Structure formats: structure tokens, C-alpha cells
């Protein structure tokens, strides 16, 4: 498939009629959405609605059976996909942080640029120290993940993704495993990123945060997008009864 050159007036992520099954269970039943560069979108919905699966498909951690996902013009649903190309563009942060437990905070951040991009370790270290400051973890450079709190680990994980200089960041319920007190420090970090113009796609249950930060909100249920729109209209004037019911339970 010829790759047409992507320009930033086109969607940076373009998802068209995506279908995804695990065995007989169809999790995504024709999802489409476009995300523009610099946009922050939040995907909300009940558990099992396929929202995590969707963002995992964007960086090819899960494959899809039908449809198309394009990231900066790169087709993800292609068996000859150059995964490294894709993953340089897309950073991902997970619910369980998934840091490398045998590396310090600083080493966690430095590892991918050195091993994957073969960059100069001295330059990488300078950048990594800058990222430590950015996520407000000065003094924790030498700490191992096991010595950090959940919120601190999650901020290291964010810095680790940013070290690869991605164009898009995916956040998969990144505050779901955190204590309520530490949720905020992670959300602030994400907000900083969004304000810097990073394209962000978040799966989240933090409605207040979504309302505040998102340019666009998608509500998914049972594998389809039920409703979407900018936060103002989405939260106040939801039309679909399923959306209204979900919001009434959560807010």
C-alpha cells in the first residue's frame, strides 16, 4: 500500500471502521475517529467497552481484523508494518506503570533512546535529567521502581515515553491503580504535556479531568462509539440514554 505523505492539516491519527475480536468475542465493532495534531481526546465508557483495546491497537500491541488505523499516514493494519517506525511516533503509558524493575528511574528513561534509537548516552542522559525535572522527580534519579510510590512510578513511565520524542501519547487508565492523593500529581503532569501541545489520547475514568483537559470526548459502549463531542456539549447535553445513564452514575 503506498504511503501518502502526511501533512499536519490531516488527522494525525485516523481510525476507520475498526473491528477487533479476541477469538469469538468481538470487542471493537466498527470504530472510527480522527484526531488532529495537538488535540487531547478522552475515551470514556464502562468496563469492557473496548476503550483500552482501541488505544492498544493504535500502537499495534493488539492487531485488528478489519478497518484501518493510520498514524501520520502510516497504516497500522498492515502485516509488513515497520513497528519501530510506528512506535517512535507513539508513546504509551500503562495502568500498571510497567517500569523495568532492575533499572533506576533515570536508567528507565534512558534505556530506549540508547538501545533502540542508538543515541549518544551523554546526550540522552542530559535529556533524561530534563525529563525528570519536567515530571517533578528531582532527587529520585537513582531510585529503583520498587522504592517509588505508584504516582512517582507513573511519572517515570511518562518521562520514559517522552524520552523517545513521540508525536502522540497514549494513556491507558494511567491513574486507575493509584491512591486518590497521588492521582493529582500524575494528572498535572499530563496537563503540562497537553499544554505543551502534545497530541494525547486518554482512556480515563477521571471525568472531572476529562472535562477540563479534553478537546473532544468519546463515549464507547459494547465496542461502538455511542456519542462524542466537545466536553461542554458532551457533559451537559448528552443525547443518548446510555451516555446519560453512565454519566449519572459517575458524576
Amino acid at each position, binding site marked *: 500500500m503506498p504511503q501518502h505523505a502526511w501533512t499536519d492539516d490531516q488527522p494525525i491519527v485516523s481510525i476507520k471502521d475498526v473491528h477487533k475480536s479476541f477469538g469469538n468475542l468481538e470487542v471493537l465493532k466498527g470504530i472510527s475517529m480522527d484526531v488532529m495534531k495537538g488535540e487531547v481526546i478522552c475515551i470514556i465508557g464502562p468496563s469492557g467497552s473496548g476503550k483500552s483495546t482501541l488505544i492498544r491497537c493504535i*500502537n499495534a*500491541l493488539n492487531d485488528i481484523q478489519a478497518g484501518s488505523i493510520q498514524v501520520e499516514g502510516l497504516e497500522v493494519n498492515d502485516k509488513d508494518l515497520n*513497528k*519501530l517506525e510506528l*512506535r*517512535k511516533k*507513539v*508513546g*504509551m503509558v*500503562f495502568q*500498571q506503570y*510497567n*517500569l*523495568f*524493575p*532492575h533499572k533506576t528511574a533515570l536508567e528507565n528513561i534512558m*534505556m*530506549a533512546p540508547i*538501545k*533502540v*534509537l542508538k543515541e549518544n548516552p551523554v546526550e540522552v542522559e542530559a535529556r533524561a535529567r530534563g525529563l525528570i525535572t519536567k515530571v517533578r522527580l528531582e532527587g529520585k534519579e537513582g531510585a*529503583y*521502581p*520498587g*522504592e*517509588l510510590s505508584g504516582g512517582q512510578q507513573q511519572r517515570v*513511565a511518562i518521562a*520514559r*515515553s517522552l524520552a*523517545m520524542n513521540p508525536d502522540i501519547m497514549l494513556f491507558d487508565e494511567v491513574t486507575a491503580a493509584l491512591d486518590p492523593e497521588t492521582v493529582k500529581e500524575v494528572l498535572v503532569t499530563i496537563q503540562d504535556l497537553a499544554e505543551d501541545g502534545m497530541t494525547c489520547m486518554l482512556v480515563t475514568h477521571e471525568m472531572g479531568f476529562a472535562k477540563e483537559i479534553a478537546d473532544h470526548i468519546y463515549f464507547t459502549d459494547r465496542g461502538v462509539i455511542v456519542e462524542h463531542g466537545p466536553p461542554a456539549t458532551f457533559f451537559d447535553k448528552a443525547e443518548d440514554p446510555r451516555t446519560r445513564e453512565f454519566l449519572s452514575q459517575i458524576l
Partner: protein
Amino acid sequence: MLETFTEFFRQLADDYPRWNFIFFHEPRQWARIVKGFQHTIVLSIACVFFSVIIGVIGAWMQSSPSVWVRRIVQGYIQFFRNTPPFVQLLFFYFALGQFTPSVTGPDGWTEVPIISNIGWAIISLSLFAGAFNVEIFRSGIEAVPESTQEAASALGFSRLQTYIDVVLPLAFRVSLPALNNNLVNLVKTTTQAIAIAVPELLYQSVSIWSDYPSAQYPTMILLFLSFIFLVGILVFGMSRWERAMRIPGYGG
């Protein structure tokens, strides 16, 4: 000083004929023991090294997407784990040894096989212990969460890079106690190389007590003590290593 030492053992042998520590008062026998010890050490180090390499590579191949690669590794494990190492040694040396080419030896006229009996012992014992090491590392690898590997993939690591930089360092730590046991066994199993006349410690000891039956008990004691010493060093080194690799806040 040395004089008194040898004199003491010579006297002991005279007074108690069953306790002839011949290697302590006859230089030629001492030389045999030293040579045996050297061979045992060479065998042990080489086999430990190669068996660990085999374990690491085998465990990597076991997670291959190709069914055939996995089957070959499985076949290897089944064969080497389920047959006696003694028989494997004999098979390698007497059966496979027949088919390896020979070269002209240093004296200019005898034919010397390319792989010596020591070479065969190293190959055979490494493959034997390597089969266990594959399984040991596999159990370590299974203890590394899928999600940690996924994070590495998401950062652009290839399968091999993930294995080398993330999975293996974590799996190693989990595997060390079991690996320790297997390597201890391996060092002791090197004595079976006597079957193909590798001049290691057991071979030399048997030679000594065949020549001097009065030295049988002392030589056996020496054998036991030598292995307690050798295995002791190995265990000490491994536990030092285990402690050095401990990660703050991770595992027990």
C-alpha cells in the same frame, strides 16, 4: 618445613599401611593429583560456561514464534534430560568421535582426532547440563510479567532486545537458586569423564590407588575434600552474585 611434612606422612604410611598418603611424600603422585585437579577445574569452568550459554539461547528459542524451532529445543531437552549423562559421554566419544576427521599430530606421524576426549567431555556435559538450564531459565522467563515486555515493545524494543535487556536480567535473578543447584551437580558430574579417560581428578585418583592399594582411603578422602572445596567456591561465588544482583524494592 616441607621436609617435616613429607617425613610425617612417610612415617604414617610405615606405621599404618592403610593410611599411605602417597601424594604427600612422593612427588610423582603429587604431580598426578595436581594434573587431575587442573583438568577438573578446566572441565568445570568450560561446562558451566557453555551450559549457561546453551540455557540462555535455548530459552530464547523456546519462546520463538516458529513451531519448529520450539520443537527442536523440546526434542533436545527431552533427549539430554532423560538419558544418563554417562551414556551420553560414551556415545559422543565412541560413536560421534568415529566420524570426526583427524589431523596429523605434533610428532608428525600419528593421527589425532580434531576433538580430543576432553573436548568431547566438555561438549557432552555442557549439552547435558544445558538442557536443564533451558528449563531453569524458562521458568525464570515465565516469571517476568507480560506487561513489562509489552512496555518494552511499546518503546520500540525488538523481540531480541526485549529478551536481552529486560527479560533476561529479570529472569536470571529468579533462576539463580535453581541454576546454582544444577551447576553444583554439573561440577560433580565432571568425574564421569573418567569413562573416556579424561585425566581429571577421579581418573588420577583411581590410577593412584590401582598402583598403590595402600593409598586407597587417603585418596578417597582427598577426592571428597577436593569436591567440597570446589563446589564450596562455586556456591560462594553464586551467592555473592545473587546478592550483588538484588534490586532494592523488588522481589524477596
